[in-house]
């Protein structure tokens, strides 16, 4: 009953937000300065725009870290290479390698506190639990970047920086080191065997680029890459009528969906070093 009440509150809240949005949208149309009827009618809102992307190749070394990890965090060093055919559209590839992958507090806790007995023998190594926790080892993502929003910002009214907001969308190939499939006695060994596999998933997100000069820019990017994997090598699924109970085996049934996310900081260098100007 209580939940229903809050669902009602959710609906009311969303309806309120939509209502306010509609109100605002109407006023926006009236306030747009491009609705001119004089000689400037139809003119672009920005002339002589520095086109930081159009016709330029960019290489951007990057550092990334994952978010909301349950058993292991990953810090990725990589780079994005992009050719921008237009100021709003670029094609490229992102690649990265997981250089550091520390365990979370939960993994440390399991390592020190989990009982090692027949009930946990399939799931917890007798030695180091961390050794059976999965790793993201590498990722390669062919992708497109779409930059619909281009502008500038003033910092403390002193520093002015050209900026754009872009969306990226690609197909990612993610190298994983994950617990190997096993059944029966092979699952209860003291040390759990590991195996490599490649997970394929959509990659998408958005980012900002701050053009501090004609050559150099700084980037801040969010990336989501959802796929299913067995993050800690645990037997969680495959048994019971609906397959939601342990079956004393490790296999693909134990891979559960995770909305993987990471934040990337980058420094980009664009060539040729001089951007073109729009009309």
């Amino acid at each position, binding site marked *: 009953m209580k939940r229903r009440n809050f669902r009602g509150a959710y609906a009311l809240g969303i309806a309120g937000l939509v209502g306010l949005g509609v109100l605002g949208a109407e006023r926006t149309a009236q306030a747009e300065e491009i609705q001119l009827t004089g000689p400037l009618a139809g003119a672009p809102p920005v002339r002589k725009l520095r086109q930081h992307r159009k016709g330029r190749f960019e290489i951007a070394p990057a550092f990334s870290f994952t978010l909301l990890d349950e058993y292991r965090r990953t810090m990725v060093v990589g780079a994005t290479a992009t050719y921008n055919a237009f100021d709003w559209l670029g094609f490229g590839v992102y690649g990265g390698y997981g250089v550091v992958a520390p365990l979370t507090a939960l993994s440390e806790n399991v390592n020190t506190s989990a009982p090692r007995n027949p*009930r946990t023998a399939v*799931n917890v190594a007798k030695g180091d639990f961390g050794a059976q926790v999965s790793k993201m080892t590498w990722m390669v993502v062919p992708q497109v970047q779409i930059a619909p929003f281009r502008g500038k910002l*003033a910092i403390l009214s002193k520093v002015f920086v050209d900026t754009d907001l872009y969306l990226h969308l690609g197909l990612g190939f993610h190298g994983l080191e994950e617990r190997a499939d096993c059944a029966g006695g092979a699952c209860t060994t003291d040390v759990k065997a590991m195996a490599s596999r490649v997970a394929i998933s959509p990659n998408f997100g958005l980012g900002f680029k701050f053009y501090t000069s004609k050559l150099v820019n700084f980037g801040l990017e969010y990336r989501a890459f959802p796929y299913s994997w067995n993050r800690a090598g645990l*037997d*969680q699924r495959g048994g019971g009528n609906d397959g939601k109970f*342990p079956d004393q085996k490790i296999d693909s049934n134990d891979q559960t969906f995770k909305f993987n996310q990471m934040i990337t900081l980058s420094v980009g260098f664009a060539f040729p070093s001089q951007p073109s100007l729009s009309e």
Partner: protein
Amino acid sequence: MKGIRRVAGCLLAVSALVAVPQVALAQKGGKKPPAAPAAAPAAPAAPAAGGDAIEIDDPNAPKKPDTPPDQPATPPAGGVTGGICDIDPTACPKQSDIKALADKKVAAEVYAVEQEFALKKGRVEVNPYGAFTLNDQFVSHPAFGLTANYYLTNVLAVGINGNLFAGLNVDSDFNFQNRRATRVAVPLTEYQWSAALQFSYVPIYGKFSGFNAFIFNYDVYALGGVGALSTRPIAVIDPDNRKFDFKPKIDFNVGVGFRIAFNKWFAATLELRDHIYVEQLENIQVGRSQAEQTDPNTWLGDKPLTNHIQAQLGVSVFLPFGFEYRLPK
């Protein structure tokens, strides 16, 4: 329209360039003008005193004729005409200086954001939003919240903020899976409400062109505040015996937000807010005897410093709806 504004802007800039040095030089260097004739202050109507140099501050003052019929064309000895070249000949611009200035190369590109799109000083911002947790993979704490800010200046505001979490906390499936597989439980907590007094500061503003077809303005703000957050442990270690009540904790807030203006009074907001507080967790040890298990003094465990980072999506309404710029664009 924009062309006219640019021309007007250029004229204003040129006027400023011409006027600024004069005003500055007139106040320069403690070189007081020679003592004016004693009659000058006593007889403001007498044009010979030269005091009418302050016409710049009084546009309604009667203009002095260039050469009054009853005055000599040259000023009296020791008098002041009001011209900078007479007051301080060393500061008098030379023709060569003006030529050098005229030849000086200037960057033709325009960098600055010309004018802040929506002034905030003296206005109240009402910001309802929905929030979700960014950094807790075990329990998410979605909330509905409201922030009300009063802007003391265009960049500094004082305000209040409140969140309602009660009934919205979601215990992830993952907790159960992990407990079942490893026999290790993660202590969990749930939130009820939070309230805080806060300051916010707007160091960054700018504008974006969308597809080179329309323009919208945005700003970025930082905030800091202090208040209370009411939380309690969820009994997962020994749910048969333990029950917990909500208790408020001191809650420090820091955050950063991004606000997109649709018009002068309506905006969309995205904010990241970190609630920093000392959490009270459930004791992961269970007493051996029934008496120990039912003793509330054995139920509570660690008190870690906790960061709860939430993302807030909402809208902002500025009241009053309208305002006037102090200077024309």
